[in-house]
């Protein structure tokens, strides 16, 4: 005797139901839009009020760090000639440095001029060889 049609239907419904529930309860947290500095600078209104990831290079000489606080940094990142000020409030990864590539998670300030971030992935410019560096290290 094989499984009855009724049983199969109940199983199918349970499957569809649970997948549907998971899909509906997914807040989209964890799936983030990933853009370069110039996209944000050119059209800040597109990115108002939501969390995004921004990719750029830390402009040398711009890192300012508030003494005595827990990771309160200000620096400027650039990409394709456009620059964006960043206010970063968290611990920085070991690989964070001037001239290094970073991917910041956060949102744009209300006036669209400062990117408020508290999560960073910093690319290391050298792992084994200068030209082969794609080493990421994350803080959370």
């Amino acid at each position, binding site marked *: 005797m094989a*499984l009855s049609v009724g049983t199969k239907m109940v199983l199918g419904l349970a499957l569809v139901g649970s997948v549907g529930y998971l899909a509906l309860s*997914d807040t989209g947290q964890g799936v983030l839009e990933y853009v370069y500095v110039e996209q944000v600078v050119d059209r800040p209104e597109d990115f108002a009020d939501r969390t995004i990831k921004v990719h750029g290079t830390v402009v040398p000489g711009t890192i300012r760090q508030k003494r005595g606080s827990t990771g309160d940094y200000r620096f400027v990142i650039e990409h394709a000639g456009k620059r964006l000020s960043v206010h970063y409030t968290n611990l920085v990864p070991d690989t964070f440095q001037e001239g290094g590539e970073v*991917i910041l998670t956060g949102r744009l300030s209300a006036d669209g001029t400062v990117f408020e971030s508290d999560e960073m992935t910093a690319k290391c410019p050298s792992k084994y060889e200068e030209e082969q560096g794609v080493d*990421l290290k994350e803080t959370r």
Partner: protein
Amino acid sequence: MPISTLGTLAVVLVFLSCIATVAFSVRGVLLRSERWVEAGVQALHATFAAAAFASALLVYAFLVGDTSIQYVAHNGDPAMPVFYKVTAFWGSLDGSLLFWVLLSSLFASLAVAANRHRHRELIPHAVAVLGIITGFFAGLIVFMKNPFEPFLLEVPSKGRGLNPLLQNAYMIVHPPSLYLGYVSMAVPYAFGMAAMITGQVDDAWQRSVRRWVLFSWLFLGVGLVLGGLWAYEELGWGGYWAWDPVENAGLLPWLTCTAFLHSVMVQERRGMLKVWNLVLVIVSFLLTIVGTFLTRSGVVQSVHAFGEDPALAWTFGAFMLVIVVASFGLLVRRLPLLRSRGEMESIVSREFAFLVNNWLFLSAALFVLFATLYPTLREWAGMFVEWAARRWPATFGGIEPPTRVTIGPPFFNHWMRPVGLALLFLTGFGPLVAWRRTTPANLVRQFRMPLVVGSITIAVPAAFGVDSPWGLACFGLCGFTFWTIVQEFVRGVAVRRRNRPQPVWEALLGLFVRARRRYGGYMVHLGVVLMFLGFAGKSYDLERKVTVHPGETVQLGKYEVRHDGLRATTDWQKDMITADLTILRDGEVVAQLHPARWWYFQMPEQPTTEAARYMTIAEDVYAAMQDADMTTGWTRLALFVNPLVNWVWIGFVVMLIGGLVCIGTRREQLTDRVGGGHRG
């Protein structure tokens, strides 16, 4: 002759030997000639000999510091300890490909030598498939990534050395362990293909490969867990798993291997799921190639990726396409031979539990694969739209290319948590239901106590203030499953003692000796339960980021952390700043922690974080120093309380022991059923 020339000759020899292996075997099959088949087998052994010679040469080059070889110059450092010099062999792309070839030819030789008298008709086909796989990687070395490539002009005097982050005991074992897992999947795949080519798709091929799948599964597990331990101790973010693409790449074949190890039992007992088993072997093998590809091509950016290399990516892509087309093409052709002998009779049956287990494992693997590749696929789609808009502005000009996205841990956790819990439930449920069908009375008898225990393990943490529903569900299922396993052992022991009076320990030992696979399997399940206990602890962990000066104290849950001072020291490799912390609980000193930051002289721009932790069976107090200033003494710390985290490692060790018990199963014991009779 310089090492670089000799080494290059050796890798060319490996490649030629692979071609000979395939050619001789195919000729042997076509001519039905035992002598050619035997020549193919010998060529396979010769491949291993050549690969071993090439690998020994590369290790030797590192030991003597032959910096005229680019690979050695970039990855070696005369100041490194000897074992890091040896492991530098597989530390980077070119050498790791040679390591692939070494392992793959070794496993191929072993598998063929072990099975040559048993499955004579499968051998030439399996040998040819193994020759093709090894030859692909040998070809990559010869034509694209030769680790013996010398410098053409000037020779640098000193190597740059291995990244200090990777100079860690776990890192010596983690990559080769994953590699052993990846590469050993080629053997089951080759025998599966041989079975389909010859049409001998009965259970014989599986008997040759089950142990190989178990072997692969064990080493993938070891690699994954060591990678987690490394991340936990070395990266200083207080966690061990972040759904990083390369972590995922190791997890994927582990999931499908686990599925195979279960479903193969259904085929053995009921003659069902034959197609399914072949699919799982093919998919597992594909996923090991995908894993190697993800790690080595830089297609998906991650902690470990070695760099972007489009030519390598295309070559891998083409190879995978060939595997997919050949494998599934053959499978479709052989479908008529793979008809199931048995039928599903009830959903409350062992078969059905196994089937659901398989669906969950496979869908988890495919889901993780898709989510890992999704950002890359989307990027490719974007590139395509932009290209199309340039090519045909009239048609595609107005279309916005899709933006790039990233997928982070919250997304994976959201989808994988319920799958994990469902699998944990099946871990307890599956082994207790009967084959074919189970009566309601039997169900009640089997699950009364586990349900009671499960309820208790929900109530107790809830009383202690755990409020995460996922955490509570996980605790409950841990209790439920734990008791089902205890019950099985108790019953087994009771049956043995009834048959012949003996002490409890002797009966327990007897279970493992007489029915290794079954009780080894329960032990693996026990390890799973303990690991999930560790995952459950994650639901109420604690994290604080603080800045403190010496003499100050901060509160961390029920602990107090006192900053006693900073020390700056130097050894022959690095500068170090160490913070001395005292952990107090209710005013009593419980531990001294010394988190540090190290600046290696060879890479001063990239300091490493040396986390420190106070380990107990209940929880870890974990401290990482982010930054410190020697003049003012201010220190930035990341502090964590990680409940039950050590159960992840303990559980894994239990799992490993269980796996080793299973792998030692002798052939004649495979169908042994001791302690049976108590089940309907």
